[in-house]
């Protein structure tokens, strides 16, 4: 799932096979070089993660650019 300006870069939610969040991001950076300019927070199944996290099939990964609510 992508939010904020990431929606404009990725265009839609994607189904990607990756064994971990680091591998997932490696794939995404290769495909969408613009992503590397953004400071992203990553959530796996609605939990924000701080380091590399193992992924199971059907896990939902959310990529979130800096928040700007309020």
């Amino acid at each position, binding site marked *: *799932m992508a*939010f*904020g*300006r990431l929606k404009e870069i990725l265009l839609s939610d994607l189904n990607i096979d990756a064994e971990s969040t680091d591998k997932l991001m490696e794939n995404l950076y290769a495909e969408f070089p613009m992503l590397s300019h953004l400071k992203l*927070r990553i*959530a796996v199944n*609605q939990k*924000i993660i701080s380091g590399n996290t193992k992924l199971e099939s059907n896990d939902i990964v*959310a990529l*979130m*650019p*800096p*928040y*700007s*609510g*309020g």
Partner: protein
Amino acid sequence: MNKVKKIFQNSAISPRSIAESIARHASKTDIGAHQIFLGQIRSDVIENKKVKAIEYTAYEDLALNKMTEIREDIFAKYQLTCMHIYHSLGVVHAGEICLFVFTSSKHRNDATLACSEVVERIKNELPIWGREIFEDDTHQWKTNVF
């Protein structure tokens, strides 16, 4: 797990709803102080283009869970009678209200400090994004100033 309260509405926050929210507290006579924060859409001018509206989107499930956590922290830290929070999603035009935070307590200090802390935490910790729409319908993604 505590009940997750809704905070989002798909429109600007009307001054009438704010007045009604204040009125609903008239029966709670243990309250001695209310503190209210209202966020209003500002018409910034950026490179000669004027912001006419902000379109808000959110990761709603995560935002509501995070808000429940913030609510618990705030109630543990301050002696509050109640706290109400409303945040707009969708398009909100310049001059309209997009955030309403309302804290009430017996004495003013708790309501004042809690309100200000909640506003800061909302801006820092809730996954909400604002897209600033200019008068020529181009846009840029808002960044929060602290």
